[in-house]
Every structure is written in C-alpha cells, then in structure tokens.
C-alpha cells in the first residue's frame, strides 16, 4: 500500500497538485510565499503582524546578543522569525553605508589587518543579512504525514494547517519537521504553527505578514507566479554582480517536493539556520516498514527456533 503511495508521488518527489491529491475538487490554485531576503530591512513588521492577527501569546522577552535577533527561532508562539546575520563580506558590489574612521572601524572589530583596503577608504566590508523565516508549507509535509490524529491537514490552497480542536498534543510532528518549524506550546499542550492565515485566505485577503511587509520582501500569491518572479529576480541580481543570490525551496524536485514558502538567500541556507538539503522523512517510510517487518519476523522465528531446539522441559517427558 505504501508502495502505491510512492507511485502516486504522495510520499516524495515532484507533486504538481497537493491539494487535489488530498481530495479537494475544484480547488483554488496553490498559494505560497516568495520571501526575497535581499530587500528585507529587518523591521520585524511581519513578526508583529503575525502575533497580532493570530493572537499569539508572548513567549519570552530576552536579549540574546545575536545581533538584533531576540526572537531566536520559529516555535509554537513564533510563526515568523526574522534572522539577522552580520558578516564581513561585501554584498555584491554594494555600498555598505558604513563609513567609519579607521580607528572606529578597528574598535568595532572591523580591522583591516587582512589588507582589505578600499580605494576610497571610507567603507568596510560589512554586510547584514536579514531574512524572515516561516513554515515552508512543504509539498510533502512530514508533520502532516506523521500526525496520527489527522489534526494536520492539507487545505484547498495547498497549505498545511493544524486543527487545534483535534490535536491531542502527541508531539510527533515536532521532530518530524525537517525545518524545526512546528512546536508544542507547553502550557497549552497542543502544537502550533503558521496557518498561512487560513482565515484571511478564505476571505480573499493576503496573509497578515505579507500585508505588513513594507519592502515586499514577503510576496504572497499563486505559487507558479511566485516561482517565475523569483527566477527573474535572481537573474536580475546576478546581472548586477550579486552572485551570492540563490533560491531555496524553489525546486519541485528537492527532498520535500518544493516548498510552498520559498526564499531568495544571499548565503548558504545553514547561515540562516535552514537545513541545506532537507528530505521529508516519510520518503523512506516504506523501507522502514520493510526493515521492521523483517526484524519482527526475526524475533518470532528466533524465539520459535529456541523453543524447537529445547523441546519440553526434562522431568516432564
């Protein structure tokens, strides 16, 4: 049975119509996010809008020392997370806009001992990467696959949503997600994550985070359109010398069948805390069941052989 699921691309591989395969007829086109981190200014409007719209409780007010990131990562009560990365690397041929006297630059740890002198001497090789992370609404979503209650489901928009009135807080989806997105709210017991604003989509509105984004770093729309637009954007950036620009989660043939929410990044994914090559764990499930079956038969056969070898106890013969 699981084999036939693979055959129909329900466990892994390219999958053009996840909503249709989940049983939705005449459904709207699959929607998603294209998060273009090259224009993100790190304002965190998306984080705030998400918290506000979805009435998410506060989950800690800490100063981490991780640049301007005190949110730290996605979790049960953080469905958008803006990452901040400070690097000594030029952004393409960018004007970094950091004009220090040499002394100041050195104090700030931007020393020039490596001879990275600048022609004009007033800018440093500093770049600041900012990226708004979110649930990827995977084409093959491990969280959804492993959920034993059916609380996680595929919507008609092709997104992945938890039904909070069904979730029993078994926590299986948490370690199943290859991106570390979904998590349990301890005081509540259930798990929570981005719904891609299912309520707003139903009312024909765009998600709150995309609506709030002042630079259109978060772009919402039909996935096909977003993919075409993203390809064009990468081409544009490469043209002006930003060779670091690359798409993440765009490829429908990757380990999760492509992400519903994909990104334009300016460095390797792991720099942003993203896995470089995520694979939906259930891709290997048929093989797992086969191995477990052989193991179970080994146990049964082994113990049967033991009894056959020993026969009846002495004295009782």
């Amino acid at each position, binding site marked *: 049975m699981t084999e036939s*699921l693979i055959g129909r691309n329900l*466990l892994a591989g390219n999958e053009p119509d996840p909503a249709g395969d989940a049983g939705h007829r005449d459904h709207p086109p699959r929607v998603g996010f294209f998060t273009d981190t090259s*224009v993100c200014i790190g304002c965190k409007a998306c984080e705030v809008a998400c918290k506000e719209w979805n009435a998410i409780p506060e989950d800690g007010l800490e100063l981490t020392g991780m640049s301007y990131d005190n949110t730290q990562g996605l979790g049960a009560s953080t469905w958008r997370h803006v990452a901040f*990365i400070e690097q000594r690397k030029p*952004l*393409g*041929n*960018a*004007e970094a806009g950091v004009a220090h006297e040499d002394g100041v630059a050195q104090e700030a740890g931007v020393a020039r001992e490596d001879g*990275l002198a600048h*022609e004009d001497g007033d*800018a440093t090789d500093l770049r600041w990467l900012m990226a708004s992370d979110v649930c990827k609404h995977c084409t093959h979503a491990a969280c959804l*696959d*492993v959920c*034993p*209650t059916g*609380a996680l489901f595929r919507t008609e928009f092709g997104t992945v949503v938890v039904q909070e009135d069904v*979730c*029993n*807080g*078994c926590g*299986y989806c948490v*370690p*199943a*997600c*290859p991106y570390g997105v979904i*998590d349990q709210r301890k005081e509540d*017991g*259930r798990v929570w994550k981005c719904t891609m604003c299912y309520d707003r989509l139903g009312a024909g509105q765009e998600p709150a985070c995309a609506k709030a984004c002042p*630079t259109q770093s978060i772009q919402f729309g039909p996935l096909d359109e977003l993919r075409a637009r993203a390809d064009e*954007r990468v081409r544009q*950036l490469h043209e*002006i*010398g*930003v060779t670091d620009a690359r798409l993440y989660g765009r490829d429908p043939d990757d380990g999760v069948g492509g992400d519903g929410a994909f990104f334009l990044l300016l460095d390797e994914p*792991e*720099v942003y*805390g*993203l*896995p*470089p*090559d995520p694979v939906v764990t259930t891709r*290997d*499930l048929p*093989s*797992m069941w086969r*191995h*477990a*079956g052989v*193991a*179970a038969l*080994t*146990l*049964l056969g082994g*113990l049967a052989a*033991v*009894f056959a070898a*020993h*026969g009846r*106890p002495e004295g009782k013969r």
Partner: protein
Amino acid sequence: MSESDVTKDGIRGERPDREALVGKGMPRRRKGRRGERAMVPEAKFTSYYGKPVLNPPTWEPLDIAGYFFLGGLAGAGSVLAAGAQLTGRRSTARALKISSLVAITGSAAALVHDLGRPERFANMLRVLKPTSPMSVGSWLLAAYGPAAGAAAVLDVTGFLPRLGRAATAGAAALGPAVAAYTAVLAADTAVPAWHGGYRELPFVFVGSAAAAASGMALITSPARENAPARSAAVLGVALETAAAKVMERRLGLVGETYRQGRAGRLMRAAEALSVLGAAGAALGGRRRTTAVLSGAALLAASACTRFGVFHAGTQSAEDPKYTVVPQRQRLEAAG
C-alpha cells in the same frame, strides 16, 4: 539612498520596492590579496548562532523511552509465553502473560501521559494512517492489548481455555510487531540519530525486547523451565549488540551521539549489563539466584538501551552540526 520624496503634491520619485538593486553602487573590487584568503581552511560547517536547525522532540524521556521499553517487554514476552505454553512450561507461560499485560498497560499509560491533551487520547483512533507509525501503532495496541489481556486473565482464572489459547496465539502473533514498530516511530522523524539508523533500529529494538522478556522469564520462572529463556537471552543480546554496532558505523559523524554524553553512558551501561546478563544466564542460569540476577541485569540493559537511543536522538537534534554536515556531504556527493 532613498529615491522618493514626500512633497505637498504627493510622493515624488518611485521607491524601488522589490526591484531594489541591492548590491549595486560600488566599483568592482580588485581581486588581489583576497584570493589568498581562500587558502585558509573553511570552518567545518556554519550555523545560525549555534542554534539547532530542528525542534528537538518535546517528549518526556521517562514516558517515551519507557513506552519503547515496556512495549518491547510485552511484545517479546507474548511470544515467549506462547512458546512456553506449547512446550509445557506452564508457570513460565503464566508469568509472562501477566508481565505482558502489565507492561502493555504501562506502555499505553506512558504514551497517554505524554500527550499534551491526554483527554483526547481517543483521537489516535480517529483515522488509520499508514504514513503515521503512531497511528498504525495505536491500532496495533488496540488489537494487541485486549489479546494480551485476555491471555493473562483466562490463564489465571482458567476460564474458557480454548479462547485463552486463541488469545495467547493472537498476542504472540502481534507481539513482534509491537516490539518492532516503535523503532519505525522513532526513525520516521528528521532526528539524525534516529532517521539515519532506520535500517538497524528495528533490530536493536527487537533484540532488546527479546533480552528484556527473557530477563523477565528468568526472574519469574523455576529453573526447571528456564532453558529456552537462557538461550533467548543470548540471542537477543547478540542481535541487539550487533545491530547497534552496525548502526553506529553507518551513521558516521552522527554515530558519535551514541557514544557521547548521557546517551553514551546509557549505551555503555546497556552493553555491559546485557553481556553480564547473557553470560550469567548462559553459564549460571540453572541456579535460581544467578538466574534472577541475570534476569534483572537483562531488564536493566534493555531499559538503558531505550533511554540511550532516546537521548542520542535528542542530542543529535539539539546540535546543528548533525543536521548540517551530513546534508552538506550528501549535496557534495551528488555533485
């Protein structure tokens, strides 16, 4: 840098928005000494401030490792019980049927206790999803639990012997599946130390289950009946130890999570205890005291294995190294 001005007549000059040409504006650099810096070996892997990529399991170790251990004890115990009954080892059969009933009750109780919303336990049986080992396992427990219960109760009371034999056989048929599926449950996650070991983990688990159940048989049954349990102990320990070794080797870098920290201590304790238990059972199992001590060592070894595997998983999820490095290697191998 802004290209727009707010004036009385509205906004003048268009903001570039998503077309902004970030990265434009500076003269292209000379390559020069920059190239030499590439000679410095790159750090092995990068991460976001050392934060984990994955969200580690929220499961309580006592609940979930306990659920693995008790499920194994029950499942393999049912097979031993049926074998004992068929070969005329009445008291062994009865003791193991009782222990399986108690263990599977404890196993299910631990699982329910770990739920964030225990009162919604029944939602586990809302659907049957082959893609969810926890769903399949819940249905398996729903079938196995009553069989194990009936086998124990009918044996003790002596009622309905024919139904009792059927229940014993049913529990023995389902028992190995109960012992093995929990390995799939752990492996079907993104946790590197579990998923990467999905081929061997079921063998580790059934071996550990066989060791635990034979330990229970050694403790509870008279020496006259315990010859099969002694052999089963040796077999179980051999299978578990060999499978664990192969798994560690296959895991490569991630394998070190089974050797380090709390997981490492538990896995070493498990190995020492199981070798001790198996040797004691094989060589001195005819003496009641040795049999009981060996049985206790085997049970403790099995519990240590389950807790060790659990903690190795948590450790591998909490360090981004174990997520990033193997994935990088995979990408590089693929070209």
